């Protein structure tokens, strides 16, 4: 990447960060000096709204890591105000595609052969383009139809520059603000996840692992990665066609019941997360399809994650305690999952649990109630940030949030227990 581009990106991020910081700091300092009370909820909400809009604008113009950063922020309801979550949720990572010639150069360099030696046909226009890579349809010499995912040529450099910029800004911000939002851990997490997504060999191994997990499940389709034709920046996969999972009309037209699709989808993720402890952590609608026969297709295993031993059972216990309002079981589950008290106060989780159990008389395992309880939990932690939420939990909550969005779109809800195959006792 050219020096001028680097400087330009640095200045853009720095300028926006300074404007945001001042937009919060100036009014609050002025109020303090004038002896006025802090701004009311409506004023703060409007300010959050404006700021979130500004961040979104920056991300859409800069793409790359900024998009990923916004997506990460949108998952942290325990850290950021609701206005940020709502606005930045809209941040999708569709970007203009790179030219075919640049793609060809990457594939040929990566696989060490001319394109024609590997592929009988290679569609020059990509079918999808995201922040790190784009996908082309092709046909191998032996006639197999494939999808080829190719990493952008200069993506490593862009990511390094953007991450460095954001790290500097976070440090400056933490220096000036005595009670900062904890942005550096978030950035660290983002760095880890981007590392996963750029490692195509890891992605191939993850896809195989999930494919093996569902090998005997006729309702799930995980495309095979052809490792002999894949490299560090190129993945060649079995081509699979299906209806995008949020296209309800097309699903109904195919004779499928959207409620079954939702339940099957929930089953797949519950099985990966709770039972296998290893999951594809990016179930946005662009990565999920349904075949006309009703099989769920899952693609893109770049962001896949192994959970610590016992995490699935711990998560199940937490869900269970939330749904049955069992305070002491909730406290045990928080601790087993790795939630930590920032103050060291042993009552931290008891107070958190009390807030959760006080909200209703009777629980439910229906999707809507589960979502409400998760929202309530994050809100409680954000309002009184004494608990440190483990990053694995955040990632899992993000997955369930995506699934919930898909369920909404399909006009149905999933029941967690049913997804586990429960029939009751």
């Amino acid at each position: 990447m050219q020096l001028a581009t680097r400087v330009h990106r640095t200045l853009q991020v720095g300028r926006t960060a300074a404007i945001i910081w001042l937009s919060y700091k100036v009014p609050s300092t002025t109020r303090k000096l004038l002896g006025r009370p802090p701004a009311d909820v409506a004023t703060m909400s409007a300010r959050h709204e404006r700021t979130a809009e500004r961040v979104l604008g920056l991300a859409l113009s800069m793409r790359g890591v900024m998009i990923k950063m916004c997506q990460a922020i949108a998952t942290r309801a325990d850290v950021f105000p609701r206005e940020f979550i709502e606005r930045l949720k809209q941040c999708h990572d569709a970007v203009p595609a790179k030219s075919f010639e640049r793609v060809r150069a990457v594939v040929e360099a990566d696989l060490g052969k001319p394109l024609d030696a590997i592929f009988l046909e290679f569609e020059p226009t990509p079918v999808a383009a995201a922040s790190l890579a784009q996908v082309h349809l092709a046909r191998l010499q032996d006639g197999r139809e494939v999808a080829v995912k190719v990493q952008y040529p200069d993506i490593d450099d862009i990511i390094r520059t953007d991450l460095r910029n954001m790290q500097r800004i976070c440090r400056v911000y933490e220096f000036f603000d005595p009670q900062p939002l904890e942005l550096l851990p978030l950035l660290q997490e983002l760095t880890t996840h981007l590392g996963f997504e750029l490692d195509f060999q890891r992605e191939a191994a993850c896809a195989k692992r999930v494919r093996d997990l569902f090998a005997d499940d006729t309702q799930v389709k995980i495309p095979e990665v052809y490792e002999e034709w894949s490299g560090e920046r190129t993945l060649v996969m079995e081509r699979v066609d299906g209806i995008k999972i949020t296209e309800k009309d097309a699903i109904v037209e195919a004779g499928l019941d959207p409620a079954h699709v939702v339940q099957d989808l929930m089953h797949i993720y519950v099985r990966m997360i709770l039972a296998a402890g290893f999951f594809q952590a990016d179930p946005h609608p662009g990565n999920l399809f349904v075949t006309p026969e009703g099989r769920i297709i899952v693609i893109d295993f770049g962001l896949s994650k192994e959970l610590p031993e016992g995490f699935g059972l711990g998560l199940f216990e937490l869900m269970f305690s939330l749904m049955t309002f069992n305070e002491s079981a909730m406290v045990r589950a928080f601790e087993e999952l790795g939630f930590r008290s920032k103050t060291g106060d042993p009552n931290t989780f008891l107070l958190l649990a009390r807030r959760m159990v006080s909200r209703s008389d009777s629980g439910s395992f229906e999707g809507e109630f589960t979502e409400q309880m998760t929202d309530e939990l994050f809100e409680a932690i954000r309002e009184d940030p004494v608990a440190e939420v483990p990053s694995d939990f955040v990632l899992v909550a993000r997955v369930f949030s995506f699934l919930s969005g898909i369920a909404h779109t399909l006009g149905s809800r999933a029941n967690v227990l049913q997804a586990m195959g429960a029939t009751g006792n």
Partner: protein
Amino acid sequence: MSAQTEPTTDQVDYTEQELLSDVSCVEPLIANGVRCHGGFDEDGQYRSPRTRFRTPAITAWQRQLEHQGHDLLQISPDLIPPTHPSVAQAKLLLTNGAREPIVRALTIISIVEGFGAMIRDVKVPNLRERVADPIDGTALDHLTQGLFEAHARDESGYRDEGGHKQMWEAARDAALENPKIPGDVLMRLMGRRGRRGGAQPLFPEIGEPLERMLGLMANVLVVEVIAEETFEWGISLLSDPSVSAAPDAAGAMIAHIRADEKPHVEYLRTALSEVRARDLKTIDGKILPGRAVIDGLLHRTLREITRNRPREQREDIREGLEAQVAHTPNARALLEEFDALESSWTPPETTGFEPRDAA
């Protein structure tokens, strides 16, 4: 509905609050440090939770049904498959240090008990519209007026009172001294239960919500009846001092669960018998005998469970066992001895609920 006679003088209408209310106890039930539901009366006798009105109510509904000339449906004890591993096999494993399969089995039982909470999420259609005969003052009329909720609370616990889930965990932890829970518990559980797609409708003419509700009730009833064998197994195993560190406490805990489950079996068989004694309205306004529907659903459930459950349990245990003892010097001998203790069981040819041609 036939054989309508004078009503009984028993009280047959109850509020939800009544059906959820407890008998008074002087001492709570504490299981391995966890406060559980129920408790002990002045005579030191265990009293199940939420039975102050629920037990007499179920008796009254059953008397009423009998008074009206209808039978309570009965699932034959011959249909209950033995628990695998048998008590003798389980003791063999525990005394030889192969604890994991038993810890896993007990943990799965506790989770499945907790799954009982989903009964409160059952969508109940308007039964006054879907049942052709009156349902006032029946168990059927009280499903959403406390019966399902009481069942859910009994199984999964409610607020800070543990239910059967926590009681099985407590029995396991006391008897086996807080064992490490195998990491594959949920995978094993879902591997067996995770088949999706649901059963094909048997009676599409009554509509999916009604069939789903009745099917789930039939299924839960069968599981509850079969659980009787599991309680016997649990009590025999965990109250044996040669394998249990807390034979009295662990055995008693399972006996309490067994006592708590009785109202579940009784209200479910009562409500399903009430449907059996009535006609159902199909979605196009025709009439279908409730007996045909209930018997059809029970027959299917019983046939599936009696055929599949023993095999699934055997496979689960065998798989876990082989993996656990693979590296031990006496693995082969242990497996041989385990297999020698295998009891054979063949499900009866009939379930007692075979569809009738006339239906």
